[in-house]
């Protein structure tokens, strides 16, 4: 995972559920590219193509609620999205994103401040998100969990710990 994530944002509202992110009928796929072809298509004409010109998704409360489908975070990665910042996340999405290696940040103040197309810069080491000259702190992910994200997901994390001869205890 990079130390700094920057780019243009697309902004959603509250309670974006996983059926909106990727509809149930596409759960026959697991490949990020294939899933991305149908991501957010429920939102109508122009989706998901429109989202490909953005780098970071910003959303309100409870992003990713509803079904536990891991394909929701996979589909977002398939769109080329580098991070999701939300006022809060649904816990299944939060967990899936970390296990999938999709960086996510909880920061209600950023949601309130930004508009579609704005530039954001996320400094992971400093724990800060910058927008129009202002810095916003985000709560750090617990260290043990952050390690999974840093290594690009749970499968990679386990492989690396197994290779190092130290299975997680």
């Amino acid at each position, binding site marked *: 995972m990079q130390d700094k994530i920057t780019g243009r944002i697309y902004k959603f509202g*509250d*309670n974006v*559920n996983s*059926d*909106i992110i990727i*509809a*149930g*009928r596409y*759960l*026959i796929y*697991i490949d990020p590219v294939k899933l991305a072809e149908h991501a957010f298509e*429920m939102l109508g004409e122009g989706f998901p193509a429109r989202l490909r010109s953005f780098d970071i998704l910003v959303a309100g*409360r*409870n992003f990713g*609620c*509803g*079904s*536990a*489908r*891991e*394909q929701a*975070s996979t589909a977002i990665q398939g769109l080329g999205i580098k991070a999701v910042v939300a006022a*809060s*996340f*649904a*816990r*299944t999405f*939060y*967990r*899936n994103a970390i*296990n*999938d290696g999709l960086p996510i940040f909880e920061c209600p103040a950023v949601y309130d401040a930004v508009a579609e197309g704005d530039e954001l810069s996320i400094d992971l080491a400093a724990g800060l998100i910058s927008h129009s000259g202002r810095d916003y702190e985000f709560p750090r992910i*617990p260290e*043990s*969990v952050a390690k999974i994200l840093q290594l690009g*997901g*749970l*499968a990679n*994390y*386990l*492989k690396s710990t197994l290779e190092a001869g130290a*299975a*997680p*205890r």
Partner: protein
Amino acid sequence: MNMVEKILARKSGQKSVAPGDVVLTDIDLMLMHDLSANFVMKVFENEMEGASIADPSKLVFAFDHNFAPATRDAAEALAAVRRFAAKHNVKNLFDSGCGSIHHVVMEAGLVTPGMIVIGCDSHTPIYGALGAFSTGVGNNSMAALGFTQNKGWFKVPETVKIHFHGTPMTAVQPRDISQFLVGKLGEDGAIYKALEYAGPYIESLDVNDRALFPLQAIDVGGKCGFVNPDDKTLRHVRALFGNKPGTPQFELFQNDADCRYAEVVDIDVSRIEPQVACPPTVGNVHPIDVAVGTPINVAEAGGSTGGRLSDIRTLARCFANRRVHPGVRLQVVPASRDIYLAALKEGLFETLHVAGANIFPPSAGSNQAFNMGALAEDEVMISTQARNFPGRNGHPKARHFLASALTVAASALTGKITDPRTLR
């Protein structure tokens, strides 16, 4: 500590845990339905190459959406899971027609109090009604950490206690109360939280009705839900093993008298009217008045929140010597084979068949419209299912209302959404 904290502490080998701690615990049971099993399997085979399954007896596959696969793709996916199960010696494979996953697992006696259960299904928290800690996870959690090491990571949740008291009005069913709670707290009302359902009303319910509450914990953003286990829980678990030799050993974890809550919510159930979740989301819950009179095309008693024996009995009582309204398709989907058999023996299916209803094989019913339940553009369904998001059942403009079995029955009788209190 409360029940959830005690289980997480025991299973992570610690004396105590507190909200916010991240723990790595043993897992007792891992559940996958036919929509998730195939992917978990692929993640395991592709990303964890060469790894083996630590304990195949802890895995459960239940094919609940495809009661008989309708497409070649679906047939191939199920066949691949059957091959995987045979290769890795996974004995707990419940094939098509078994019922709805959590009812199948509960009835098979696979969950006992004190267990940690994870499932690739967001409604997995249901086992909190049995004194277990259970929650929904994604494919990676299951395949990587669960399959290979019987482990899972969890952040210990804060707990919100919902204290229910009072006696419900006639025609108000437990589903109305559990649905009311989703509307009251909101879909983001308890994110990451454990929800404890307590109070005289909860104590008065049997375990099958209590289960509706943790089942819907996810619909307010909760990590898990539970009822502090009592004598009723124990009797229910023992009854599951009544006809089999030897009830497995289990440990009962109960709340300490001084356990702390992030919040306590008080609900007087005597003031709750029949409830309906209107499109487009599960949290859009209102007293039935707002929807009364809406013409319907499909009515269904089925799914994890509505294909129980009590729901089918409710329907049969309504339709004794009465007919389903012309133009309405009434779909009855038992949640397990045991329920199917009991309904058959009680003559409920004969009553419903004569009334004009269609009886479907035990399954998840119209959930996500895999084998059934697709709607055309202008169609309206009212069901006991758990979710009503647009596009989940056919056309994105089709409308899906969620309600109790009694409200579903009353509506199927009149052809429009009907307040069950007006039933003669």
